[in-house]
């Protein structure tokens, strides 16, 4: 690309608009999938190097996420992009941002509650029960609220 290169902070802002394909209310930044953004090389060799980490080993969304990130950067004029995958330290739900937690709740998914009770995302009751250890995606379990009687997805601790 020509002219001045966008600042790394600007790239982070762009990435904050790339939704997760399975939980589109969260961005790849909210999820903690993007670990690092940096410019590498000199002159014409200058390229953007992104380090990302998969959520679950077998998550089918991983390939889509890589594609979406490249497409978003291309839309902003960044063509030379290297995506490096870092497995360690392993991704856990602790990488999900506080903003991500709030967005999940608003969307009707109970955010991961490590060491805390799971709360119904609709009525905030703690009187809930697990229906199924796995839900609509590998990262979620199925719960039911005994107060408002609504079933809901719980983003399980990982």
């Amino acid at each position, binding site marked *: 690309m020509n002219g001045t290169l966008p600042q790394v902070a600007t790239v982070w802002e762009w990435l904050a608009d790339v939704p997760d394909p399975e939980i589109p209310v969260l961005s790849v930044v909210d999820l903690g999938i993007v670990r690092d953004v940096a410019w590498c090389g000199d002159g014409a060799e200058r390229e953007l190097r992104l380090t990302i980490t998969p959520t679950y080993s077998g998550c089918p969304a991983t390939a889509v996420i890589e594609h979406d990130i490249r497409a978003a950067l291309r839309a902003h004029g960044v063509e030379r992009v290297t995506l490096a995958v870092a*497995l*360690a330290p392993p991704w856990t739900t602790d990488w999900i941002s506080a903003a991500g937690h709030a967005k999940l709740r608003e969307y009707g998914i109970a955010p991961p509650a490590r060491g805390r009770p799971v709360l119904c995302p609709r009525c905030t009751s703690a009187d809930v029960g697990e229906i199924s250890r796995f839900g609509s995606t590998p990262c979620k379990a199925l719960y039911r609220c005994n107060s408002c009687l609504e079933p809901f997805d719980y983003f399980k601790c990982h």
Partner: protein
Amino acid sequence: MNEPAPAGDGALFEFVVRLGDNALVLGQRLSEWTGHGPVLEEDLALTNVALDLIGQARLWLQYAAEAEGRGRSEDDLAYFRDAHQFRNVLLVEQLNGDYARTTVRQFLFDVWHRELLKALAASRDSRISAIAQKAAREVEYHLQRSADWVIRLGDGTEESHARTQRALDELWPFTGELFRSDAVDAEMLQRGAGCEFEALRAPWHHRVLAVCTEATLVVPSDGWMQSGGKAGRHGEHFSYLLAEMQSVRRSIPGERW
């Protein structure tokens, strides 16, 4: 048919292929349940556990292919090897049978898998360590679920108890192989990249005993133990599993979609 000697790191390739094959073969067996689970929740659970295992298999087989350095890919390893070239332990290839058998197989494997991955997380080989740390978190959840089910079925009805005990008795001879080491394991251990398989036995047995006791099941005593999977000697059902897994890829080699 003799395979040419690997151009790269032979011991590393062999060691990592075994890890990949365990995950791949059990993932394939579990996926046979897709659409046939006893209840919807279990159908989802088995499919998701299978998905985790296939994901882990990809990570291991990608690394094995790189270690080998002969230009093969993870897909080549999964789809273009024959039965005698697979290195999984015999336990994971055992038939699904009834739900008790699938559950007991999963439980015996999960306990071992968790101990193995914990040990490999300390590997001096940073790639092995990273994959092991990643997989261990997933396997922790698999184990919670399979242990729950062993207790529910073992301490359930007379029928479910009898079936679970029978599954435990029938699968027990396949657990001895989990703790055996050979020259490849010894070399990897010596490099600080592998682990001491015999050392996994005590924590494995401790957990198996605790869960089985709660499930009112009797843990069999060790007798004759089957082995050979790590050296490529598999049971008669294994070729059928491979046929189902490999037939599409082999009928249209190189096809992309």
